[in-house]
């Protein structure tokens, strides 16, 4: 594996591999070579054009790539990858660039391979409830393709208007509804992948389990390090007859957490259980005027599905279950507009926080039972760094999003935010959880991997990377700590 860690200037605290100057020096030749194998207009090499690909949603890190290519077919992807392999060019696959962990961050000696032009729906099979699509399609467009017939594609990351299925496959994305419907891996049956040597392989298909080893399970969530997935067969589901949320405020974090446990223990699986702490409630209420109780220490939004009668009954049961935990506020939506209002605050939470400060969105997962002690500890850590924090929690599945507030124009505060975030994630691991529930490792959490895994664990993972991509050319500077790679 080439290169030793160096600290790139302009960027923050992370080290990056020294770029391959041999490749950079041949830039003009390489771009000509790429133009020779792709249709006119597919290679973006001018500075303004490349600028669009220098970062993703982790904007603290930026690096101009050699070029970006936008192929329109699997065969073109294959040509690009075999050309890049022959010329030792690194390739960063990119969907819509919505990664919050720097999953699509280029290096100076890489090209970005954008999949966004490959966004067609190839086939919809309602009887089998599967769709074959090109992976540049946005997440929401899969649902849009089948929603007129009352179906939907279940994984629904909050970036779903923009993010692509390719990116979802790269990160094994989840969403608010995954407590009931699972994440990307649970909803993809087959895919077409191009390996770094240009070989095109189809894995799985429209049957419910694939033959042989679970290569789908390895590829989905591999952060663009194993190959470029150009097509996929996804499962879609019939929408429920209806859905309705309720909102409950609590006098303490513990009470809200215990209430969630009691609901789940009762056998009810709501389609979503969202938790917000007091700072999050305040910020969202200021912004959305959703009628959230400002006096509550914690808030739960719980949504159930079914017919009108079933919803009525289920929400009634939940209120009874909640009673011993003494909710300070209970508001059951009585209409579509009330439902929208209840969700508005939660759905605009990130935007609302962004209005008052820059924020760094963390993505740990913790066991539900550890919620209150983890939140107390988060408060203490953020205090120590003199930073404010608001916590949003997918309570049903343990996915915790602390939003650390900072001022991006203050270099010191930015560095503190980054260090504080790392400590919060290590706290999640100590509590029995993990570094990332749905955003991925990318560059952001790469150096924290040893807090969750042993070297032996990581070596077993890295061998799979090597098996798919022996020269480590695909998105190579991500996921694995540089020091472990070097050894």
């Amino acid at each position, binding site marked *: 594996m080439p290169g030793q860690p160096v600290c790139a200037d302009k960027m923050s605290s992370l080290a990056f591999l020294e770029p391959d100057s041999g490749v950079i020096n041949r830039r003009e030749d390489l771009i000509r070579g790429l133009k020779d194998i792709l249709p006119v207009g597919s290679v973006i090499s001018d500075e303004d054009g490349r600028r669009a690909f220098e970062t993703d949603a982790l904007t603290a890190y930026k690096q101009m790539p050699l070029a970006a290519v936008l192929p329109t077919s699997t065969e073109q992807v294959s040509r690009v990858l075999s050309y890049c392999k022959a010329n030792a060019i690194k390739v960063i696959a990119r969907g819509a660039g919505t990664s919050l962990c720097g999953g699509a961050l280029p290096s100076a000696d890489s090209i970005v391979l954008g999949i966004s032009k490959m966004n067609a729906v190839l086939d919809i099979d309602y009887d089998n*409830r599967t769709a074959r699509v090109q992976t540049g399609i946005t997440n929401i467009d899969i649902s849009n393709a089948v929603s007129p017939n009352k179906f939907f594609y279940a994984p629904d990351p909050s970036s779903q208007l923009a993010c692509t299925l390719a990116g979802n496959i790269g990160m094994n994305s989840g969403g608010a509804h995954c407590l009931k419907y699972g994440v990307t891996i649970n909803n993809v049956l087959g895919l077409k992948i191009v390996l770094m040597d240009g070989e095109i392989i189809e894995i799985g298909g429209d*049957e419910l389990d694939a033959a042989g080893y679970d290569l789908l399970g390895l590829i989905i969530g591999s952060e663009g390090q194993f190959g470029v997935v150009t097509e996929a067969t996804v499962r879609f589901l019939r*929408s429920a007859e209806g859905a309705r949320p309720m909102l409950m405020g609590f006098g303490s974090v513990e009470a809200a957490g215990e209430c969630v446990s009691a609901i789940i223990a009762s056998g009810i699986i709501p389609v979503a259980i969202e938790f917000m702490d007091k700072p999050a409630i305040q910020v969202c209420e200021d912004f959305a005027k959703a009628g959230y109780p400002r006096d509550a220490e914690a808030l739960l939004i719980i949504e159930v599905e079914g017919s009108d009668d079933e919803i009525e009954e289920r929400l009634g049961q939940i209120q009874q279950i909640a009673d011993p935990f003494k909710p300070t506020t209970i508001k059951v939506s009585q209409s579509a507009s009330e439902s929208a209002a209840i969700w508005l605050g939660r759905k605009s939470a990130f935007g609302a926080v962004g209005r008052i400060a820059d924020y760094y969105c963390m993505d740990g997962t913790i066991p539900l039972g550890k919620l209150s002690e983890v939140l107390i500890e988060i408060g203490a850590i953020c205090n120590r760094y003199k930073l404010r924090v608001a916590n949003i929690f*997918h309570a049903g599945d343990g*996915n915790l999003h602390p939003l650390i507030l900072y001022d991006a124009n203050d270099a010191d505060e930015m560095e503190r935010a980054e260090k504080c975030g790392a400590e919060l994630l290590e706290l999640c691991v100590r509590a029995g959880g993990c570094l990332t529930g749905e955003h991925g490792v990318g560059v952001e959490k790469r150096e924290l991997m040893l807090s969750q895994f042993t070297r032996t664990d990581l070596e077993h993972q890295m061998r799979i990377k090597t098996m798919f991509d022996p020269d480590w050319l695909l998105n190579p500077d991500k996921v694995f700590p540089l020091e472990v790679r070097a050894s």
Partner: protein
Amino acid sequence: MSDLIRPKDEEALAVAVAEAKSSQTPVEVCGAGSKRDIGRPLQTAARLTTEKLKGVTLYEPSEMVLSARAGTPVAEIEKTLAKHDQQLAFEPVDLGPMLGAQAGLGTIGAVFAANLSGSRRIQLGAARDHLLGIRAVSGRGETFKSGGRVMKNVTGVDLARGIAGSWGTLAVMSEVTMKVLPRAQATRTLLFIGLTDQVAVDAMCAALVTPFEVSGTVHLHDDFAARLVDSEYLRRPSPVTALRLENFDSSLAYRSGQLAESLAAFGTTIELDDGASHDFWDGMRTLTFLQDSQDPVWRISTAPTQGARLVAALSKRLDCRAAYDWSGGLIWLQCTPTADAGATEVRRVVAEIGGHATLIRADAALRASIDVFQPLSPGVSALTTKLKQSFDPAGILNPGRMYRGV
């Protein structure tokens, strides 16, 4: 008679595998051994079993998570879960009884090693979809972990899923952590009697596009049906199509009425109550209808709508009976014995229509002479060989059980 290695803990397991590796001694890996007769026959000097690695190590009902050592019997785990009205939602099929072993012998490690999923797979996912994490010893003799105990976890390469369904050829699991779910308050089953295969598949697919959360869809040929359905409903031998609803009592009355109404075009239905439903679906879990016979059995996976077409094509040249699960997407096919257990025909038809087939029951001589697992495309086959080499470079764990040289 091969040596029996029965490590008492994970450390001893790692030592045993490391020794096998350093001495280049291939070992047969198994749990309780109830599925030893599946796959290509092994010729190993030793057998390594996880049966002493027993016990539930973590169970948090309110977090819907359970961890157990790999050798823990599934029956014990289900007993533990039942105390909290929870269950393994993927409803693992028990292949033991059809292979001559007693029911309920299988271990939880083997359930994931073989990715065994039952009828509820169609609604709630396969075994591997409920696997949250593992601890295991790879063929390198090294202990590693993957995943964890939380529902959402995308940290690093998902080795747990890579190991699921690998039939002990990559690593020996020492502990598994899984998602568990509440048991429904009640179950009802709607039966159609006498549908042809194609009409039954159409009915099952139609049931799954309703919003009533149908959690099981099976169709059984005459004499298979007779093993699962009480004779009061079957005055003469007939195929039976069954649709399962699970929910709160109050919802079931509404949902079964709505479902029957929306499928009225397929005929009238008989409704099984909670008790009769459990009997029926328990029978599906142990594949009662495949027991008491030595005839070859294939497990075929295809797109649900192709199931009936596939069986029709096979029936032209093979004397066979079918049970369809997963709305037609999973076929248990029992054939009258022939020289190759129907392999030539099964491979030809599956290649034409799509899907994959595994020979689940056949004598050892036959399993040694034909492909038991679906032959793979060259690209997938190359990755399969590399994955084996990555985890087990010396080729000591269940060598050749799935594929020659793997």
